[in-house]
């Protein structure tokens, strides 16, 4: 028996006012693949990700995860199915410590968010420290999240996103705003973590060095449509892609 794709998107549409942000996108993402989604600003990448993880509702089309329809579900239900994500503008819980940020996510995964009576302090602490260790933040565990450096926040968000042991990880510009070397390091870290656990990854990214270093396959969006998909090599050579990027791709 051949296993179907982990994620399948069929002809998804989304418009804002008169602007067609996503215009009939379809894709199939096999389990274990690390795929990049690239395209110029305004191509509809972030909108597409928001459609996949429920932040936005599709105007039309279907999103299937492990063969089950997930389009139409709210974000929290999609997360519970095993899809986790990070945001383009770093999203962490500013008034909590680094450790507590991860604890909140783990406790949610354990179904204990509505526990009114336990003390949070020791709950899921070891597991949370373990996630922090994986992203290299164990020394910062007790810091207030608001005092972290930008790069560390990105790592923290990655740790939070891993808390439910996701099968699919969606990363929206995971390295945006970082120094070039830092970017490569972070992406390398992310790829290493996901490889260890066979997590499937879909990420958008502007930095082509990061894309080509991390992605197994690349999808290119332009004006709401997917215009190319393939191995890094084939995408790099695609004339349409080159035209869009005004030859600045290589």
């Amino acid at each position, binding site marked *: 028996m051949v296993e179907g794709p982990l994620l399948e998107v069929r002809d998804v549409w989304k418009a804002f006012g008169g602007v067609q942000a996503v215009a009939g996108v379809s894709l199939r993402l096999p389990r274990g693949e690390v795929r990049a989604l690239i395209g110029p600003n305004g191509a509809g990448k972030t909108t597409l990700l928001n459609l996949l993880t429920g*932040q936005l509702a599709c105007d039309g089309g279907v999103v299937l995860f492990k063969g089950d329809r997930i389009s139409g579900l709210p974000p929290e239900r999609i*997360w519970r199915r095993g899809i986790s994500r990070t945001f383009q503008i770093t999203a962490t819980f*500013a008034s909590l410590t680094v450790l507590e940020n991860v604890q909140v996510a783990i406790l949610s995964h354990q179904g204990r968010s509505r526990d009114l009576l336990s003390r949070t302090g020791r709950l899921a602490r070891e597991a949370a420290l373990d996630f922090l260790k994986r992203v290299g933040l164990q020394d910062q565990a007790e810091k207030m999240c608001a005092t972290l450096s930008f790069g560390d926040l990105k790592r923290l968000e990655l740790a939070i996103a891993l808390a439910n042991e996701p099968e699919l990880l969606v990363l929206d510009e995971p390295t945006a705003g970082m120094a070039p070397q830092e970017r490569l390091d972070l992406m390398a870290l992310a790829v290493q973590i996901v490889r260890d656990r066979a997590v499937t990854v879909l990420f958008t990214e502007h930095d082509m060095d990061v894309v080509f270093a991390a992605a197994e396959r690349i999808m290119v969006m332009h004006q709401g449509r997917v215009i190319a998909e393939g191995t890094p090599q084939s995408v790099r050579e695609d004339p349409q892609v080159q035209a869009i990027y005004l030859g600045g791709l290589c």
Partner: protein
Amino acid sequence: MALFIVQLLTGLANAMFLFLVASGLSLIFGVTRIVNFAHGSFYMLAAYLASSLAAALPLGPASFYAAVVLAPLGVALLGGLIEVCLLRRIYRAPELYQVLLTFAVVLVIGDAVKFFWGTENRTGPSPPGLSGSVPILGQLFPTYDLAILLLGPLLALGLWWVLHRTRWGILIRAATSDREMVGALGVNQAWLFTGVFVLGTWLAGLAGALQMPRVALTTVMDSTVIVETFVVVVIGGMGSAFGALLGAVLIGVLQAFGILWLPREFQLAIIFILMAAVLILRPWGLLGRPETESGTAGEALRREVGGRLRPPRWVWAGILLALMVLPSLLPTFYVWVLVEILAFALFAGSLQLLVGTGGMLSFGHAAYFGLGAYGAALLMKQAALPMPVAFLLAPLVAAAAALFFGAFCVRLSGVYFAMLTLAFAQIAFAVVHQWYDFTGGDNGILGVWPAASLAAPVRYYYLALLAAVCGLSALWRVTGSPFGYTLRAARDHPRRCQAVGVNVRSHRLLAFGVAGFFAGLGGAVFAFAKGSVFPDYLSMPMSVQSLVMVLLGGIHALAGAPVGAAVYKLLDIVITKYTGYWQAVLGGILVFLVVAFPHGLVGFVQARWARMRASLG
């Protein structure tokens, strides 16, 4: 038909006044994000000022019109002064402290009016040349109201012109939709804020001055107008001057025709029912724009200074011991004061869970305090339950109401959330006020005294202490539980929180229910301490009071609520004892506290503590 048209014109004339006041409030909110409680005070001040000017100016019949022009200018100047001297100092503090400051200004202006003009009802002069009436379809219609009907649209047009055709107006509109962007444009934000505040205050003042020949000048004009103004602004959409116009026309006309067709029981609540309906169907008002998600809580949090102060057990033990011993040392009256403080500590503590931990600003928390009190009274009087049973069940009544109302509120955020809580509180108020057969109406329920075995002040005090200690530790426990942390996470970043599998709405609803429960417990303590319950317990001043207590203590400080409750109550009692001008003194102290401790008293202590720790390494 004649009736219909005259009634319509009447409603529209009233709407013009509402529009003037509301457009000012809306502009100020749109740009500065300040919910300006003092807006009604400027309206009142202008009315008084205009009536005195009209009498004092030596211009004959022109004095009236000169006064109508001058008084709003004077008030606008005062508004500008207050903005520059007070508000500007605390734009960086959590936004709620600006609310507290405007509330303090309400108190001070209220007493200033009392001081200069006395408390007796006054009437302003009639407008020379416009004091008569003209027949319209066989009915007399005041000429002055006709003039207002002409002036209103002209002012609306003028406002449109300013907002759309001048650089300054365009900046105002830009700032309303995106504050950061205006900062980036290199505009002097401080003066833009001041300018808008002056313009908004001028509009309120103009409405007040123009009302002078129509209404009685009273010392409660401020609170009367501000509530209605909130309703208008919210229905229209905060920040939208034309929403204010639409809201004002809707309310004015609805009230005029409500007189003809609505049963009496509904008249008290009708505008709040309309507001609730609008907010449920259109969560940002008719012409409003959705608030940006992380706008309210996140901003304030990044500026939050202190860490979390957890005093060691012996401190708690000491405080508890002191509270156990105190009643035997104090005169009976102060035992009752302590009981009242304990009731308010629960009330404020529960609100702190919502506002501080949950980031949900409530302007209607008194509803649950009051329903707890009514629950206790009704269970005892109508259901004939023994007092201790009524006492224990009362919080459940409050919690049930909180879950019901909360289910609608949690779909909203920010100021709209606050306004919907206010609407529900006012509706609950109207119900207990009007349901004479069941709740005793405005005469309340009397004879709600504790059982004989608990009636002695000291004994009742221990019951109250037990309730407060259990209630507050439960609230703190909840704050430190996974639920509480998740609630904070939802406040810090709702989208992120959703994206870690939390149903933010239902999570907030649960918090609303918990807060309602403990507010209700406070209400039950209060009811038996006072021996009676009244609709006032659910009223807006009561909600504002609890908010002041929370802010005074510090919204993000756990111990803030009880400290705020104690400080506020003691100040209130001490000041009322020594001066008739308690409002001004209390207001002055609040201004001082807000400017000196912009993070609340306990917040201040925490910040100091954190800094001390930091310097010690």
